[in-house]
Protein backbone atom coordinates (compact mmCIF):
# COMPACT_ATOMS: atom_id res chain seq x y z
CA UNK A 1 0.00 0.00 0.00
CA UNK A 2 2.78 2.40 0.98
CA UNK A 3 4.55 1.55 -2.27
CA UNK A 4 1.42 2.36 -4.26
CA UNK A 5 0.99 5.70 -2.51
CA UNK A 6 4.68 6.49 -3.00
CA UNK A 7 4.38 5.64 -6.67
CA UNK A 8 1.31 7.83 -7.03
CA UNK A 9 3.02 10.73 -5.27
CA UNK A 10 6.09 10.29 -7.46
CA UNK A 11 3.92 10.38 -10.58
CA UNK A 12 2.16 13.52 -9.38
CA UNK A 13 5.49 15.16 -8.55
CA UNK A 14 6.91 14.33 -11.95
CA UNK A 15 3.79 15.56 -13.74
CA UNK A 16 4.10 18.80 -11.80
CA UNK A 17 7.64 19.22 -13.13
CA UNK A 18 6.63 19.27 -16.81
CA UNK A 19 7.19 22.57 -18.59
CA UNK A 20 3.93 24.53 -18.24
CA UNK A 21 2.27 26.40 -21.08
CA UNK A 22 4.27 29.61 -20.92
CA UNK A 23 6.26 32.00 -23.04
CA UNK A 24 9.68 30.57 -23.69
CA UNK A 25 11.29 33.98 -24.19
CA UNK A 26 13.97 34.25 -21.55
CA UNK A 27 12.81 31.08 -19.82
CA UNK A 28 15.34 28.47 -18.80
CA UNK A 29 12.69 25.77 -18.56
CA UNK A 30 11.26 26.13 -22.07
CA UNK A 31 7.92 27.28 -23.39
CA UNK A 32 6.48 28.61 -26.62
CA UNK A 33 8.11 31.05 -29.03
CA UNK A 34 7.34 32.49 -32.46
CA UNK A 35 9.46 33.80 -35.32
CA UNK A 36 7.92 35.64 -38.27
CA UNK A 37 8.37 34.17 -41.75
CA UNK A 38 8.85 32.86 -44.33
CA UNK A 39 6.26 34.79 -46.31
CA UNK A 40 3.13 35.40 -44.28
CA UNK A 41 3.80 32.36 -42.09
CA UNK A 42 5.10 32.22 -38.55
CA UNK A 43 7.30 29.51 -37.08
CA UNK A 44 5.73 28.43 -33.78
CA UNK A 45 7.59 26.15 -31.42
CA UNK A 46 7.33 24.71 -27.94
CA UNK A 47 10.30 23.32 -26.06
CA UNK A 48 9.65 21.16 -23.04
CA UNK A 49 11.74 19.55 -20.36
CA UNK A 50 12.29 15.85 -19.75
CA UNK A 51 8.95 15.53 -17.96
CA UNK A 52 6.96 16.93 -20.89
CA UNK A 53 5.49 14.35 -23.25
CA UNK A 54 5.84 14.77 -26.99
CA UNK A 55 2.06 14.75 -27.41
CA UNK A 56 1.65 17.53 -24.83
CA UNK A 57 4.27 19.62 -26.65
CA UNK A 58 2.38 19.06 -29.92
CA UNK A 59 -0.92 20.12 -28.38
CA UNK A 60 0.67 23.21 -26.81
CA UNK A 61 1.98 24.29 -30.25
CA UNK A 62 -1.42 23.78 -31.87
CA UNK A 63 -3.05 25.84 -29.12
CA UNK A 64 -0.40 28.54 -29.51
CA UNK A 65 -1.13 28.73 -33.24
CA UNK A 66 -4.77 29.37 -32.42
CA UNK A 67 -3.81 31.99 -29.85
CA UNK A 68 -1.64 33.80 -32.40
CA UNK A 69 -4.48 33.66 -34.92
CA UNK A 70 -6.98 35.03 -32.41
CA UNK A 71 -4.63 37.85 -31.39
CA UNK A 72 -4.41 38.91 -35.04
CA UNK A 73 -8.15 38.58 -35.64
CA UNK A 74 -7.85 35.58 -37.96
CA UNK A 75 -10.71 33.05 -37.67
CA UNK A 76 -8.78 30.26 -39.44
CA UNK A 77 -5.24 29.00 -39.74
CA UNK A 78 -3.30 26.31 -41.56
CA UNK A 79 -0.37 24.41 -40.09
CA UNK A 80 2.51 23.02 -42.18
CA UNK A 81 4.86 20.67 -40.37
CA UNK A 82 7.75 21.33 -42.77
CA UNK A 83 8.73 23.98 -45.29
CA UNK A 84 8.61 21.42 -48.09
CA UNK A 85 4.98 20.71 -47.23
CA UNK A 86 4.35 24.47 -47.12
CA UNK A 87 5.89 24.76 -50.58
CA UNK A 88 3.62 21.93 -51.80
CA UNK A 89 0.62 23.32 -49.89
CA UNK A 90 0.19 20.07 -47.96
CA UNK A 91 -1.39 21.06 -44.62
CA UNK A 92 -0.78 19.18 -41.39
CA UNK A 93 -2.99 18.75 -38.35
CA UNK A 94 -0.05 17.98 -36.11
CA UNK A 95 3.24 19.83 -35.54
CA UNK A 96 6.57 18.17 -36.17
CA UNK A 97 7.77 16.77 -32.85
CA UNK A 98 11.31 15.70 -32.09
CA UNK A 99 13.46 15.28 -29.05
CA UNK A 100 17.02 15.57 -27.90
CA UNK A 101 18.29 14.61 -24.48
CA UNK A 102 14.77 13.33 -23.86
CA UNK A 103 13.44 16.90 -24.11
CA UNK A 104 10.64 17.32 -26.67
CA UNK A 105 10.47 20.13 -29.19
CA UNK A 106 7.39 20.68 -31.35
CA UNK A 107 7.43 23.07 -34.31
CA UNK A 108 5.07 24.11 -37.05
CA UNK A 109 4.70 26.84 -39.65
CA UNK A 110 1.34 28.55 -39.36
CA UNK A 111 -0.46 30.61 -41.99
CA UNK A 112 -3.24 32.82 -40.68
CA UNK A 113 -6.40 33.10 -42.77
CA UNK A 114 -9.50 35.29 -43.05
CA UNK A 115 -11.54 32.55 -44.74
CA UNK A 116 -11.48 28.74 -44.68
CA UNK A 117 -9.68 26.72 -47.28
CA UNK A 118 -8.48 23.14 -47.64
CA UNK A 119 -6.72 21.99 -44.48
CA UNK A 120 -7.65 25.06 -42.44
CA UNK A 121 -8.55 24.81 -38.77
CA UNK A 122 -11.06 27.08 -37.06
CA UNK A 123 -9.36 29.26 -34.48
CA UNK A 124 -12.18 29.34 -31.95
CA UNK A 125 -12.77 25.58 -32.20
CA UNK A 126 -9.11 24.75 -31.54
CA UNK A 127 -9.00 27.12 -28.57
CA UNK A 128 -12.09 25.53 -27.06
CA UNK A 129 -10.93 21.99 -27.79
CA UNK A 130 -7.49 22.39 -26.23
CA UNK A 131 -8.35 24.73 -23.35
CA UNK A 132 -8.60 21.77 -20.92
CA UNK A 133 -5.05 20.78 -21.91
CA UNK A 134 -3.79 24.26 -21.04
CA UNK A 135 -5.72 24.33 -17.76
CA UNK A 136 -4.65 20.88 -16.61
CA UNK A 137 -1.18 20.58 -18.12
CA UNK A 138 -2.14 17.10 -19.26
CA UNK A 139 -2.36 15.97 -22.85
CA UNK A 140 -5.67 15.17 -24.46
CA UNK A 141 -5.91 11.49 -25.32
CA UNK A 142 -6.44 10.98 -29.02
Amino acid at each position, binding site marked *: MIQRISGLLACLALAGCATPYQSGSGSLTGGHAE*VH*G*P*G*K*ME*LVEFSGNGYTS*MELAAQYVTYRCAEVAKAKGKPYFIM*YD*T*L*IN*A*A*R*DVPSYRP*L*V*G*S*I*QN*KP*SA*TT*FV*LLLDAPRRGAQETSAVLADLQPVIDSGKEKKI
Partner: protein
Amino acid sequence: MPILPRGLRAALLMSPLLLAACSSIPDYRPAPEEAQAKITLLGWGKPYLCKGGKMFSLPIKEDGPLRTTSVPAGERIGLVNYISISGYQVVSTCISRASVIPRKGVDLIVNGILADAGKCGMEIVREDTSKDTGVAIEPSFAGPSC
Protein backbone atom coordinates in the same frame (compact mmCIF):
# COMPACT_ATOMS: atom_id res chain seq x y z
CA MET B 1 25.06 3.92 -18.97
CA PRO B 2 21.38 4.61 -19.67
CA ILE B 3 19.78 3.05 -22.71
CA LEU B 4 20.18 5.48 -25.57
CA PRO B 5 19.44 5.25 -29.29
CA ARG B 6 22.49 3.94 -31.13
CA GLY B 7 22.93 7.18 -33.08
CA LEU B 8 22.74 9.39 -30.01
CA ARG B 9 25.09 7.13 -28.07
CA ALA B 10 27.63 7.32 -30.87
CA ALA B 11 27.17 11.07 -31.07
CA LEU B 12 27.74 11.39 -27.33
CA LEU B 13 30.94 9.41 -27.56
CA MET B 14 32.08 11.35 -30.60
CA SER B 15 31.05 14.80 -29.37
CA PRO B 16 34.42 15.89 -27.91
CA LEU B 17 36.08 14.97 -31.19
CA LEU B 18 33.40 16.71 -33.21
CA LEU B 19 33.58 19.86 -31.14
CA ALA B 20 37.34 19.94 -31.45
CA ALA B 21 37.02 19.41 -35.19
CA CYS B 22 34.42 22.17 -35.60
CA SER B 23 36.49 24.70 -33.67
CA SER B 24 39.33 24.27 -36.15
CA ILE B 25 37.23 24.58 -39.32
CA PRO B 26 38.21 27.73 -41.24
CA ASP B 27 35.70 30.43 -42.10
CA TYR B 28 34.39 30.49 -45.66
CA ARG B 29 35.84 33.55 -47.37
CA PRO B 30 34.50 34.08 -50.90
CA ALA B 31 36.97 34.89 -53.63
CA PRO B 32 36.72 38.40 -55.10
CA GLU B 33 33.70 38.69 -57.39
CA GLU B 34 32.62 35.12 -56.58
CA ALA B 35 28.86 34.79 -57.13
CA GLN B 36 26.94 34.45 -53.85
CA ALA B 37 23.50 33.36 -52.75
CA LYS B 38 21.79 34.29 -49.52
CA ILE B 39 20.53 31.63 -47.13
CA THR B 40 18.10 32.27 -44.27
CA LEU B 41 18.55 29.84 -41.39
CA LEU B 42 15.59 28.49 -39.43
CA GLY B 43 15.20 25.82 -36.81
CA TRP B 44 17.94 23.87 -35.14
CA GLY B 45 21.68 23.88 -35.66
CA LYS B 46 24.52 25.68 -37.34
CA PRO B 47 25.33 24.85 -40.96
CA TYR B 48 28.81 24.29 -42.35
CA LEU B 49 29.80 24.50 -46.00
CA CYS B 50 31.41 21.59 -47.81
CA LYS B 51 33.03 22.73 -51.05
CA GLY B 52 35.65 20.91 -53.08
CA GLY B 53 35.89 18.25 -50.40
CA LYS B 54 36.77 20.79 -47.69
CA MET B 55 34.69 22.00 -44.76
CA PHE B 56 34.19 25.68 -43.99
CA SER B 57 32.42 27.50 -41.19
CA LEU B 58 29.75 29.90 -42.48
CA PRO B 59 29.81 33.34 -40.84
CA ILE B 60 26.26 34.06 -39.70
CA LYS B 61 24.65 37.51 -39.57
CA GLU B 62 22.10 37.85 -36.80
CA ASP B 63 19.36 40.50 -36.85
CA GLY B 64 17.16 39.69 -33.87
CA PRO B 65 15.81 36.19 -34.49
CA LEU B 66 16.72 36.38 -38.19
CA ARG B 67 19.89 34.46 -39.09
CA THR B 68 21.38 34.66 -42.58
CA THR B 69 24.55 33.60 -44.31
CA SER B 70 26.00 33.53 -47.82
CA VAL B 71 27.24 30.60 -49.88
CA PRO B 72 28.87 30.26 -53.29
CA ALA B 73 26.43 30.23 -56.21
CA GLY B 74 26.50 28.38 -59.49
CA GLU B 75 27.82 25.00 -58.35
CA ARG B 76 26.65 22.15 -56.15
CA ILE B 77 27.68 22.66 -52.53
CA GLY B 78 27.29 20.45 -49.49
CA LEU B 79 25.75 21.69 -46.27
CA VAL B 80 26.34 20.00 -42.93
CA ASN B 81 23.98 21.02 -40.13
CA TYR B 82 25.44 20.55 -36.67
CA ILE B 83 23.16 20.50 -33.63
CA SER B 84 24.73 20.53 -30.20
CA ILE B 85 22.79 20.60 -26.94
CA SER B 86 24.38 20.52 -23.51
CA GLY B 87 22.64 19.56 -20.31
CA TYR B 88 22.56 16.91 -17.63
CA GLN B 89 26.39 17.08 -17.76
CA VAL B 90 26.51 15.66 -21.27
CA VAL B 91 26.66 17.18 -24.73
CA SER B 92 24.33 15.69 -27.34
CA THR B 93 25.04 16.27 -30.99
CA CYS B 94 23.29 15.45 -34.22
CA ILE B 95 24.59 15.99 -37.74
CA SER B 96 22.63 16.04 -41.00
CA ARG B 97 23.92 16.53 -44.55
CA ALA B 98 22.41 17.72 -47.81
CA SER B 99 23.45 19.48 -51.00
CA VAL B 100 22.04 22.17 -53.25
CA ILE B 101 22.98 24.32 -56.24
CA PRO B 102 22.48 27.92 -55.10
CA ARG B 103 21.86 30.50 -57.79
CA LYS B 104 22.72 34.18 -57.63
CA GLY B 105 19.60 36.18 -56.87
CA VAL B 106 17.62 33.15 -55.63
CA ASP B 107 17.42 33.21 -51.86
CA LEU B 108 17.27 29.88 -50.06
CA ILE B 109 15.97 28.83 -46.66
CA VAL B 110 17.60 26.05 -44.64
CA ASN B 111 15.47 24.58 -41.86
CA GLY B 112 17.21 22.38 -39.29
CA ILE B 113 14.76 19.73 -38.10
CA LEU B 114 14.82 17.75 -34.89
CA ALA B 115 13.20 14.34 -35.22
CA ASP B 116 12.39 11.70 -32.66
CA ALA B 117 14.97 9.85 -30.57
CA GLY B 118 17.86 12.21 -31.20
CA LYS B 119 17.63 12.05 -34.99
CA CYS B 120 17.71 15.19 -37.08
CA GLY B 121 17.45 16.41 -40.65
CA MET B 122 17.60 19.42 -42.88
CA GLU B 123 15.30 20.78 -45.59
CA ILE B 124 16.16 23.40 -48.18
CA VAL B 125 13.56 25.45 -50.06
CA ARG B 126 13.74 28.63 -52.08
CA GLU B 127 12.06 31.89 -51.15
CA ASP B 128 9.07 32.76 -53.32
CA THR B 129 7.47 36.07 -52.48
CA SER B 130 4.62 35.43 -54.94
CA LYS B 131 3.15 32.80 -52.57
CA ASP B 132 1.63 33.49 -49.17
CA THR B 133 3.72 30.70 -47.66
CA GLY B 134 6.78 32.47 -49.04
CA VAL B 135 8.46 29.24 -50.14
CA ALA B 136 8.75 27.00 -53.20
CA ILE B 137 10.43 23.67 -53.88
CA GLU B 138 14.14 23.97 -54.62
CA PRO B 139 14.69 21.43 -57.41
CA SER B 140 18.43 21.06 -56.77
CA PHE B 141 17.96 20.03 -53.12
CA ALA B 142 19.50 16.56 -52.83
CA GLY B 143 21.47 14.24 -50.60
CA PRO B 144 25.03 14.75 -49.42
CA SER B 145 27.62 15.68 -52.04
CA CYS B 146 30.76 15.42 -49.94
